[in-house]
């Protein structure tokens, strides 16, 4: 029943963590930069 971490599992976990961390970091960076976009 117990299942070892597979390469696919590790890859998916790292990818998901990286994606949300990037999104988090990017939005915080943009807020700190704080420039209005020309409409």
């Amino acid at each position, binding site marked *: 029943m117990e299942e070892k971490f*597979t390469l696919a599992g590790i890859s998916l*976990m790292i990818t998901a963590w990286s994606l*949300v961390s990037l999104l988090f970091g990017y*939005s915080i960076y943009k807020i700190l930069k704080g420039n209005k*976009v020309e*409409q």
Partner: protein
Amino acid sequence: MKERERWNSRIGLILAMAGNAVGLGNFLRFPVQAAENGGGAFMIPYFIAFIFLAIPLMWVEWSIGRFGGRHHHGSLPGMFDCLWHHPISKYLGSIGLFVSTIIFIYYTYIESWTLAFSFFSITKEYFGYDTIEEMRNFLGSYQGVNEGYFSSLSTAYIFLIITIVANFIILYRGISGGIEKFAKFALPLLFIMGVGLMIYVFSIGTPNPEFPERNVWNGLAFIWNPDFSKMWDAKVWLAAAGQVFFTLSVGMGTLQAYASYLKENDDIVLSGLSTASINEFVEVVIGGSIAIPIAVAFFGVAATISIAEGGAFNLGFVSLSVIFQNIPFGNIVGFVWFLLLFFAGITSSVAMAQPLISFLKEQFNFSHKKAVTVIGVGLFICVNFVVLFLKHGFLDELDYWAGTFFLVVIALVEIIIFAWIFGMDKAWDEINRGAELKTPKLFYYIIKYITPAYLFVILIYWTYQEAIPTLLMSGKSEVDIPYLWGARLMMVLILSILLWMIYKGWKINKFNYHID
């Protein structure tokens, strides 16, 4: 008209919005859903739903809120009325008030359990109840579901009253003085506690050398190892959409209420994205790394599956409380875990009261304190039914209709009103007003076509799969049925009162909008 209150700072607004979104679901519901629906493979439909459902709805709700605030409305009836000048629109908005009010009633009680268990952890009250069955009995006696450690509901009431008072102290102080200040303190603390617990869980490794396969890494493997065969199962896609939907607190009217306190040209694109990203980080990285990995490390995968099948509270309250008795400094770890859940809960519950507070102030000219007091008294009366009839499924009935089904109804109604009746071109301009991030044009089409279609499919599927059997009370015991009817009667009464108040409110105010 009185000048509306405003958020003091952008970071305060984002933290309050994130506090609204981050709730018990991030720590309890997400890992269970991921593990049950294909592990890592679940994350593919999850991220697709995040892009096509969550982000667009986030922007739509922020836009509707800011637009409504410009016209002195902080709740959905007024907001819908501004967007669509039709006599029925304000009554459609009543569902938003109804949902947030009902959830506020039962969520406050659940929140009080987390505070109680935080106290029971630090005082080692449940220590000695060291099997799942004993711990379930302890929780059940606290809730009045069965006989056991607690002989009455008095302890549950004490923590409920403390929780209600805490909520109302924050609400009394208003948007910037209460909710914003609290979010600035609670969210960073929640984040620190979450990361601290995650590091602690990772440090546990293999707690029992006799069972080397029971370790934290196998717990992570349980959540993340992909079962790609499940990718072809429509249920997995719907579960992912449901999780994304619930986690961001869309469809409740709370995001709109908070956004109504924005200024006309305040950015919403970047702020909305930041809120969603904070919530996702807490859910995917922190939420997925605590409850399930530690449960697998102590009980193994097979037992964890059965625990998870027993529901999120079985995992979060029962199993983890057993584990806390078997780890170093378990009482402190348990205290931090339940306090984390309490902060996640209270930052959400104060948001749930906000639409009704705004409604009373704006439609009936109540002072802020009067509105909060009236809601406090109403909450205390209604929550008694939830406390006393918990064992008969009263809370579950409220949760299904207000906390599940009608959320999707609101989301679908609001996106149709915003993108199709108000008009997608005007809606797009509204979203991008004051934007600090250029919104990809692709989202114009996603908001107009894909998100409503996505919601429509979810609604049809859930109606067929769950709403009809729930409505017919399939599989419910004869003993519980009168109480379930009681829950329905309470919901119908609250909705009727809200509809009547909307009718009266509009008669008093005779709104005349100048829509730009």
